[in-house]
């Protein structure tokens, strides 16, 4: 693709040597939706890294601390912008008594927990995506470059893996191996590597036919050099688009597993387990923020990743007419 572009626009390339990547970046920067989505994601990452501890410090509530006084006598947690109930007529220290988003059914601070949940979501999703990308890129490059039986095996493997209801088998494995953050990361990676593998395979199979690869081979480049220096850079574009949607999917995956109680173990805050706490106990019917807060956090995150992914795809599309 890159090669065609440069051949088609020789004058432009001569005056301003602008690569496809720079062009794509320029297009992306001019797309207000993508810029907005990217800003939200930056904010989210900041919230995940410093937001949790900061909120915990400012409110005085550690994420896993339970406050008995945050629950009424019938077990109903306090709501948005409410203060702890007074115990035995003793007024509490005003500092640390305010719950900005209210408390959950165990009397934990909802705001602090939703911020710590962002941390788990991003950690698990990016970790799993990184592992999936490493496996997928390696297998895809090998299958696309070598062809033959390697290609056949990788193809059968991805086809079989894609034919099954992922979540179900993932839940099954999680039940057997038990909950734990590392387990969740590995399980999710196990069910996502084949998307990048397929993309890299087809991109590699297409680029290896190009003249510059033949030229590299004539000059005596070894297969490893051809794979890493000549073929790998060609697959970054499509891979980047998919990486954003894979991260979004993996956030959802982690939340699903945690929702079903086989993901990130309690008491660690995760959006999925926060939602399931609210829903399975039906507590959300009397205290809607319990389901609304982690749910909206998920929706906003997914929406940002999806919008950015769309913007990236448009920006990287060499056929795009608008500049």
């Amino acid at each position: 693709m890159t090669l065609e572009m440069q051949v088609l626009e020789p004058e432009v390339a001569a005056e301003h040597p602008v690569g496809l990547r720079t062009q794509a970046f320029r297009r992306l920067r001019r797309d207000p939706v993508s810029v907005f989505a990217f800003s939200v994601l930056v904010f989210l990452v900041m919230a995940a890294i410093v937001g949790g501890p900061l909120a915990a410090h400012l409110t005085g509530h550690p994420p896993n601390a339970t406050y008995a006084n945050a629950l009424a006598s019938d077990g109903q947690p306090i709501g948005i912008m409410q203060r702890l109930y007074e115990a035995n007529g003793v007024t509490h220290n005003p500092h640390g008594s305010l719950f900005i988003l209210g408390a959950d059914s165990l009397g934990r601070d909802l705001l602090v927990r939703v911020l710590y949940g962002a941390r788990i979501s991003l950690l698990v999703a990016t970790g799993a995506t990184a592992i999936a990308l490493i496996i997928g890129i390696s297998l895809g490059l090998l299958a696309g470059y070598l062809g033959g039986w390697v290609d056949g095996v990788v193809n059968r493997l991805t086809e079989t893996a894609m034919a099954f209801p992922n979540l179900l088998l993932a839940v099954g494995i999680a039940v057997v191996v038990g909950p734990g953050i590392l387990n969740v990361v590995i399980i999710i990676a196990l069910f996502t590597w084949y998307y990048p593998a397929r993309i890299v395979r087809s991109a590699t199979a297409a680029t290896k036919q190009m003249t510059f690869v033949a030229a590299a081979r004539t000059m005596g480049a070894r297969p490893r050099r051809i794979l890493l220096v000549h073929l790998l850079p060609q697959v970054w574009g499509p891979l980047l688009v998919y990486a954003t949607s894979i991260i979004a999917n993996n956030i959802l995956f982690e939340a699903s597993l945690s929702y079903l109680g086989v993901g990130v173990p309690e008491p660690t805050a995760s959006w999925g387990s926060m939602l399931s706490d609210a829903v399975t106990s039906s507590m959300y019917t009397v205290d809607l923020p319990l389901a609304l807060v982690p749910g909206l956090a998920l929706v906003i995150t997914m929406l940002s990743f999806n919008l950015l992914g769309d913007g990236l795809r448009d920006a990287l599309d060499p056929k795009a007419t608008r500049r």
Partner: protein
Amino acid sequence: MRRMILRRLMGAVIQLFVVTIAAWFLFYVIARFTGASPAQRIAGKTASAAQIALVAKLLGLNKPYWQQYLIFLGHLVHGNFGYSYFQDRAVSSILWPATRATASLVLGAAVIWLAIAAPIGAYGGLRPRSIGDVVGRGLAIFGMSIPVFWLAPMISYFFAFQPTQGRILGLPILPHGTTLFPITGYVDFGQNPIEWAYHLILPWITLAIGFAAVYIRYIRTLTAEQLSEDYTRTAKAKGASTRRILLHHVGRNVAPTMTVLLGADVATALSGVFFVETVFSIPGLGWTGVYAIENLDYPVITGVVIVCAIIAVLANTIVDLLHGVLDPRLRRVAAR
């Protein structure tokens, strides 16, 4: 053509074989080392070592693993999924009604998501960058971003629970105690088709929204692709109406791809039923699976996994074969 069909069927059999091995290995071999062994589970917590050993012998747990797998496979072929650890029933008697309920849910939802996505997607493909297209695409990306396990309780809350409190969408305009939609429950189609549909409306919509979003995008792209082809220009030049072009020309060419996508998405939808069924209390495969997971009822989990895999593989296979019927070009390629 026949060779293609045979190859496809062979592929399906191999896939199912792989699933049975994976499921057996996971729930009958690994599970023995991480959780309680089947013999322990069946004999009970108070059983003596001798009793457990006896049960293990009866179950064939002391045989070599390959023999155990063959016994497991032999039972499966005869429709014997073993005995539930938790409910005092054969797993197959649990799975059959559950499969019926899940099929009702998924097929009904598929009808709804196609009905939503087809007009919006086709319009977007027909008039790209029009206001309707922009709104449609916005709705699609929004719908894609809503997790079904959040949507389910929200829909249940706003359309089933709140009306009983005399509110609709938070507005207090209904009499207290109104039942707009049932909160939970499931009625089998054979008992009362109207109640069946009434109890499934909210679950259908819940499951359909995410897929409708994805299908709006599929259909938009496919329609736009077909509209840029020469044959649609010819049809237009001959004076065919937009309606005729969309239904007869574009629709006919989009249909094969759509069936393949639908087949693949049946497998994806089976993941969604986990959440929809538990929130709306529909006794389907997802509901059965979730309760089996809570109780570590491995025979039931195994059964649910295998039945879902069979459904997914069958759907994919049927759709691939249909693809050949719907798309004559494929037949010619296969014949070559």
